[in-house]
């Protein structure tokens, strides 16, 4: 059975329907890419999965739990982390405090400091700046922090909303390497990206979203060779 199953999801903002009946699944160990233009509803889907928005209809099932009936703060303890759009780091807190909050649901102090070392290893800049107030980090540094913070909860599945936004070309490649590595270490990844080319290059499968509906789905490699995808999202 799939790890995460989304079924006939419908989400509204007031009277505006942002998600118009979407179903898809994520299997354990996979990297799934969600691509689509501005305003297609990618962020909305992630928010609905982690409980920040409640859907009007449909279900979200994660390892047998119905997430739509669960308050957002309980979802993290099930092993799901979310790197939200716009980073949403705690601006007034230090880098270190931000990272500690990432491990809020975990108890074992030793395991937490182990994870912390791993995160520092992946993002040396964060270690350098661990006492800096997060709000004064540069855009890219904040993105690293958001990622590091999510990893601190040692999740089974991680949802990422445009992790490469605002990063330098070198670091974009690095981020995708890191995502690959996270996935290789057994974490499932659901990835939302504008940088469709890179996303598809590391994904196993992908879904294409257009104004709240899935219009295309399939193998990532096939998708890269699909003409309409090329034209609309790869800029070729």
């Amino acid at each position, binding site marked *: 059975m799939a790890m995460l199953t989304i079924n006939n999801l419908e989400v509204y903002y007031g009277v505006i329907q942002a998600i118009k009946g979407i179903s898809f699944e994520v299997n354990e160990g996979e990297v799934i890419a969600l691509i689509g233009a501005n305003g297609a509803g990618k962020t909305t889907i992630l928010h609905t999965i982690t409980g920040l928005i409640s859907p009007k209809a449909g279900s979200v099932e994660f390892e047998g739990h119905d997430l739509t009936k669960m308050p957002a703060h*309980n979802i993290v303890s099930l092993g799901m*982390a979310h790197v*939200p759009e716009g980073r949403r780091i*705690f601006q*007034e*807190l230090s880098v270190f*405090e931000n990272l500690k*909050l990432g491990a809020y649901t975990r108890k074992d102090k030793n395991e937490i400091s182990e994870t912390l070392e791993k995160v520092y290893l992946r993002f040396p800049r964060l270690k350098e700046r661990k006492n800096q107030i997060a709000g*004064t980090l540069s855009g890219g540094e904040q993105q690293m922090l958001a990622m590091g913070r999510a990893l601190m909860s040692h999740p089974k599945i991680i949802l990422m909303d445009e992790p490469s936004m605002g990063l330098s070309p070198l670091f974009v490649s690095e981020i995708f390497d890191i995502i690959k590595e996270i996935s290789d270490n057994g974490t499932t990844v659901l990835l939302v990206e504008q940088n469709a080319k890179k996303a598809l290059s590391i994904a196993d499968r992908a879904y294409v979203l257009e104004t709240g509906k899935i219009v295309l789905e399939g193998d990532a490699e096939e998708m890269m060779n699909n003409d309409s995808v090329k034209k609309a999202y790869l800029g070729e």
Partner: protein
Amino acid sequence: MGSILEQLINGLRSGSIYALIALGYTMVYGIAKMINFAHGDIIMVGAYALYVLIALLKVPVMAAVFLTIIICSVLGIIIEKVAYKPLRKAPALSVLITAIGVSFFLQSLALLIFKPNPIAFKSIINVNSIRIGDITISGVSLVTFIITFICMVSLTYFINKTKTGAAMKAVSEDKAAAELMGINVNRTISITFAIGSGLAAVAGILFVCQYQSIQPTLGALPGIKAFVAAVLGGIGSIPGAMIGGLVLGLIESISKAYISSQLSDAIVFGVLVVVLLVKPSGLLGKNRIEKV
């Protein structure tokens, strides 16, 4: 000179009450990001609760103190749930107005139940006053000062060193992101109000022990003064609230004693304005440049 010392002690006496009230103000402000105008009235509820428990129900003193704190904490939680929580997404000013509404509500309720006449209340603190030469420091003042200090230290520790404290700081900045960290936002805010109101209860108890009289409007003026103290110290800063309260008490006392008792309010507020002009975020407030 003896009298200067005496006046300084007078200032510390009212200052430590302000400080204690300001601690609760600043704590709720720091986390919930709202000026809880009803804070002063929770002090009043605490005072009446203590009176009812001790004078009418004859509950033993320690139990009465404990119950008073519980009553106020629960009241704080209820107020938040009923009047503030539905307004989480509304502009900050809307919450300010409901807080004012809650303040009116508590005051008029007390007026209905207990009538406008003040009730004389005998202090439950029986600590002897200290006498140094000509100067007397009353036992209640001493106890107030010590309790305020203990509250300040433990609150600072709580917020900065415990997990719940960290959760509070996260909630104060970004509720959705805090939710994503696995923090139960509603519970955290409830805890904040419980602690803030518990502090108000302590302030209420010490207030009636100091001044030995209870009336429905008792919380209003100290509430405003404590708010001023919190801002003076840098709102959101816990040590700042304590310092702000003490400084306010001292300024009040000195200006009444050596400048003019008629104009003391004007002087106190004048000093506040000057301090804020020199240090725009209060004595201990953080003044961070916004990253652009």
